[in-house]
């Protein structure tokens, strides 16, 4: 094995093209390893791409992602597959055979992202990138700065009787509705699982009214509402009637630290809410925000950020978990109910909009990669040859994911050397 590895570069398969996976890929490739990245979505960047701003510097996500995209584009050792999923993994450290299924994009590399296909397309689909808050055509670009900058046609939403309008509209011959799924067999020395996380399903939080009470959204939906590329072009308007949000409540630990839901702390939701408070405060000077919490957890240097937000007189904090959310009578406002533990009284607070700070559920909780080991919560258990990076292993912020990815690279290239 070591003889073999001295003749050719290490080959590493990275499962997942989010922040952790991309960092793994560029770091590994820059050590001279051959890297293949497979990504389930039609675009790279994962959850970070959906954020409005991210820690630690509160830059827009494309700042950091663009840098990684550039390093990938200019590095011939990295191969990318979007809309791809692992089917099986066999073999062992130093010699894995992985079968990968590539789903059809129905758009080939000729695409110039001119939008003609979308204009011609008569069918629509809910925009999952914006958590269903708006719709796109069945032929769509996932988001403005999507990488690869190629359209995709959603086969499930594509109405077969449309007369193939998109194909006729495309001047570049990029639309290929005959495209079929294909399976590839890849041989690699090691794998890095960077499959990331899903926002915990708020429909399961029966006390918190999501889906039943108007204007109850999740923190990830808030990122999209605040984002210039989101459904409201960055104006924080509540979904039911488009009213600018003046008075907002954040509900911490919505399903986190709860044995009925996610038993652990996701460690990022407190900071996410504090960050989102600044979105609304900066956008709307008269606005008021109130955070209901069990404990505010802002580890390390993030404590400073908490201190800064706390100084704002329009932001208040109430110790006590919200355990009931109902619609205000005769309006689209929302009423949250909690105990204010510092006064020892039950309080009902009316707000324009409520944000549920839902936690991170590893994708391993709902979609496991066959051949990878998981713990009971769905987090990946690393073994020699298959290491986890980022939130597939533990909830963490972007900065830690980057560090974690680098450490996964070290493990992966060591495996390639037969140690």
């Amino acid at each position, binding site marked *: 094995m070591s003889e073999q590895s001295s003749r050719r570069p290490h080959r590493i398969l990275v499962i997942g093209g989010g922040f952790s996976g991309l960092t793994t890929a560029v770091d590994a490739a820059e050590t001279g390893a051959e890297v293949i990245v497979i990504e389930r979505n039609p675009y790279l960047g994962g959850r970070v791409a959906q954020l409005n701003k991210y820690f630690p510097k509160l830059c827009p996500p494309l700042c950091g992602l663009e840098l990684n995209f550039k390093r990938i584009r200019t590095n011939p050792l990295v191969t990318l597959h979007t809309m791809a999923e692992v089917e099986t993994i066999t073999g062992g450290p130093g010699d894995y055979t992985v079968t990968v299924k590539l789903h059809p994009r129905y758009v080939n590399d000729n695409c110039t992202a001119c939008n003609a296909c979308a204009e011609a397309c008569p069918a629509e689909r809910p925009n999952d990138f914006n958590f269903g808050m708006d719709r796109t055509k069945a032929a769509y670009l996932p988001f403005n700065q999507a990488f690869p900058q190629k359209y995709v046609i959603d086969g499930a939403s594509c109405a077969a009787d449309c007369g193939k309008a998109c194909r006729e509209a495309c001047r570049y011959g990029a639309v290929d509705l005959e495209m079929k799924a294909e399976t590839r067999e890849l041989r690699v020395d090691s794998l890095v699982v960077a499959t990331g996380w899903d926002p915990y399903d708020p429909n399961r939080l029966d*006390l918190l009214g999501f889906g039943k009470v108007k204007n109850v959204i999740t923190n990830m939906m808030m990122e999209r509402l605040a984002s210039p590329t989101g459904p409201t072009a960055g104006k924080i308007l509540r979904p039911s009637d488009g009213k600018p949000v003046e008075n907002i409540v954040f509900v911490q630990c919505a399903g986190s*630290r709860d044995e009925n839901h996610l038993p652990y702390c996701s460690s990022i939701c407190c900071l996410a809410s504090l960050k989102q408070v600044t979105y609304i405060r900066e956008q709307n000077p008269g606005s008021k925000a109130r955070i209901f919490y*069990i404990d505010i957890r802002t580890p390390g240097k993030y404590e400073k950020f908490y201190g800064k937000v706390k100084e704002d007189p329009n932001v208040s904090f109430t110790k006590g*978990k919200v355990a009931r959310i109902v619609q205000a009578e005769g309006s689209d406002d929302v009423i949250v109910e909690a105990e204010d*533990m510092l006064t020892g009284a039950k309080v009902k607070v009316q707000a324009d909009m409520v944000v549920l700070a839902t936690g991170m559920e590893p994708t391993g909780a709902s979609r496991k990669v066959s051949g990878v080991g998981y713990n009971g919560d769905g987090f990946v258990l690393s073994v020699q040859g298959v290491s986890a990076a980022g939130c597939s292993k533990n909830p963490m912020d972007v900065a830690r994911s980057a560090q974690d990815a680098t450490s996964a690279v070290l493990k992966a290239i060591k495996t390639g050397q037969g140690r």
Partner: protein
Amino acid sequence: MPEQIAGQIIKPDLNFVKDIIASGGESLKKCYQCSTCTVVCDVTPGETPFPRKEMLYAQWGLKERLLNNPDVWLCHQCSDCTAHCPRGAKPGEVLGAVRKMTIREYSAPRFLAHMVADSKYLLLLMALPVLLLLGVIVGRGVTGIPDGEIVYTKIMPVPAIDVIFTAAAVFAVLSFLFGIRKYWAAMKVGTKAAPRGSLAEDVVAVITEFLTHRRFRKCSVTQERSTSHLLVFYAFAGLALTTTWAIVYLYGFHRESPYPQYDPMKLVGNVSALALLFGISLVVVNRLKNAEKAGKGSYFDWLFLSVIFIIAVTGLFSELLRLGNIAVLAYPVYFIHLVFVFFLFAYAPFSKMAHMVYRTTALVFARQTGRDR
């Protein structure tokens, strides 16, 4: 709450904490004070609501704050809190344990309270009525199953029953009165509140609430419980009526038992007995069904349920076996029935039966102090 605690020196009673844990509150320490419980509770007042603060008192071993606290009886153990608790801390079970300890704290004599709460004394407690009733039978010269028509007075004459059970009832009433007085005084100290307003009015209001189970009906996770409890409640009322009626027949009209089945008193008694059996079975079924969400309950709970269940079954079978003329079973079953009825009466101030007295006291106190209007 913190204002009350701030500036005070907290004296945790660690033995009290262990005691709660041993009394069915074993999940107590899992609580991390998020207050989901208090918010989902539909029976708590909005000001200084429970049970989150009680969970803190319990974790810290603040004995006085719990045992002098009428709030633990405003709780009807709906278990909405327990079902939604993110940590499995089971506040409903913990408050149940605190109620049990309240009963033990105020009921006199104390040693009996400890014996009733502890399964290892069960046989000893049973031995008292067994020996007492056997003494009557042997004293009468009965050595086997009597011949002829089944008439229970052949083994157990009415005067003996009257003496034994009146004594048990008087003992229970005295013990309760003593307990109520002590508890009332303790609540005044604990809540630093002075009762005011008409006591009679508040007693009537509380009893009216019991008659409809108005508060109990607010429970959502274990909603059927109020129905089964109501059934048992009215069954007991019916049986109390039957007993009074029988006393009137016996001493007012000098009519001896057994009475014919069409007698209205008999009818009320039979219907009540069936309601009791049905009601208590429902209670047991609901408890088992809700065990996962609401907790499995303690020895204290199950002893009480078992005693009532056995009384209902043996009572009905005493009658059926008598009518079926199966003497060899009828007399022993009747004997068991009496043993358990004695058990229920004499030990009422120490068993879960006492909940009716302490809950009434606490609810009246809560009304008198404006805690619960």
